């Protein structure tokens, strides 16, 4: 424990916005998320979430309350399933919050429905489901707790392309509902498609915070952090270097296509 996992980070996260947190393995991303969820306490400094302030001396009871604000979907969340039925597993969080069985069941069903989970499987064991279904059950278990801040750690890793697309749609739905989301990811496509803001951590220090557009034009910063641009942005960047001017760097294939078509027609 000689080296601090995070050093003197000062930052704010916007309410209702989606922030992507990126950085290579060991950059301190998970540590930061665990601090925000009160799973570990800061050695020095503080974190404020709404009315709560976490410091080194925050008692365990307070942390319990804090964790109700934050929903944390861990990497490979399906690995956390344990109950004998899907419904019991999703109800676990709400019951821990002290809700009645009825209310917990209501919330569980609503969360599963939002995730397009086939409700006829409610009584089945979660271990009988496919990988994609298991992940949806696990995410439902967090959403059923009605968090105000949602942390997603590498939510698409290990899913097939269809599952990945479904998950991105879900995140967009949650964004539309005004939920504040923090996504830890290595995938720049996700940053480009979903994030309002992006934060780059490097060896425990804040290397960048700003909009995805601002990040993607900083080639040195990207190279230092071993970040690869998505193909669409890479192409746009290369064309930019060849003298083509964009009306704001396109972030997705669709945006790139739109701008090219526009340019073509303008001539």
């Amino acid at each position, binding site marked *: 424990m000689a080296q601090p996992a995070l050093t003197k980070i000062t930052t704010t996260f916007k309410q209702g916005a989606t922030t992507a947190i990126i950085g290579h393995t060991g950059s301190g991303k998970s540590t930061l998320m665990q601090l925000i969820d009160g799973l570990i306490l800061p050695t020095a400094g503080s974190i404020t979430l709404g009315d709560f302030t976490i410091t080194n001396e925050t008692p365990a009871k307070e942390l319990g309350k804090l964790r109700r604000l934050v929903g944390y979907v861990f990497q490979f969340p399906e690995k956390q399933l344990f109950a*004998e039925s899907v419904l019991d597993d999703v109800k676990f969080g709400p019951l821990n919050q002290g809700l009645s069985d009825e209310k917990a069941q209501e919330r569980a069903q609503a969360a599963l429905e939002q995730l397009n989970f086939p409700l006829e499987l409610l009584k089945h*064991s979660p271990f009988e489901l496919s990988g994609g279904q298991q992940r949806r059950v696990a995410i439902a278990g967090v959403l059923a707790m009605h968090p105000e801040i949602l942390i997603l750690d590498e939510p698409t890793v290990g899913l097939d392309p269809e599952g990945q697309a479904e998950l991105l749609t879900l995140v967009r739905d949650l964004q539309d509902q005004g939920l504040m989301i923090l996504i830890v990811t290595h995938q720049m496509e996700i940053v480009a498609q979903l994030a309002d803001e992006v934060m780059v951590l490097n060896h425990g220090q804040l290397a960048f915070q700003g909009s995805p557009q601002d990040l993607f034009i900083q080639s040195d910063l990207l190279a230092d952090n071993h970040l690869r641009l998505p193909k669409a942005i890479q192409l746009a960047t290369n064309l930019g270097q060849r003298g083509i001017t964009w009306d704001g760097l396109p972030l997705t294939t669709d945006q790139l296509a739109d701008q090219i078509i526009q340019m073509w027609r303008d001539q």
Partner: protein
Amino acid sequence: MRTTNIRKITISAMLMALLIIFGRVFLIPIPWTHGNVNLCDAAVLLASLLFGKWYGGTVGGFGALLLDLISGYANFAPFSFLAHGLEGFLAGWLYTRTHNRFLALGVGIVVMVAVYVVANGVLYTWVAGILGIGTDLLQGIIGAVVAALVYQPLKRWGNNE
């Protein structure tokens, strides 16, 4: 095509790793003794319930042997080998034969406690042996309760031949 046999080795290895983890980090503080009991018996008994006497015995015996060697109780290692080996073997054997969880786990922990009484008696004095019964028995009972609770949702992975 040979995987069944190799699977026996890998499953036993994972259960041994779990035994070491349960023995080293899953400690339940016991209020009136200022001490902890560890949960390695839960791992032994789960191995017995899920996979029968050979797994129970092998995992219990060799897992406990390793656990003692790496946690600084080398003096106990041969006794632990015997205690947890017999515990796992008998619990597995009885469960396969009778399907009575209470009997299987009960006999398993009684045998384990008995071996430790002898171990303490031989190593130190008989007084120490008898004094150890309390915590060993408690540890065994807690291990058995945990094993019984966890066994239910895990049954489908068992292969109690």
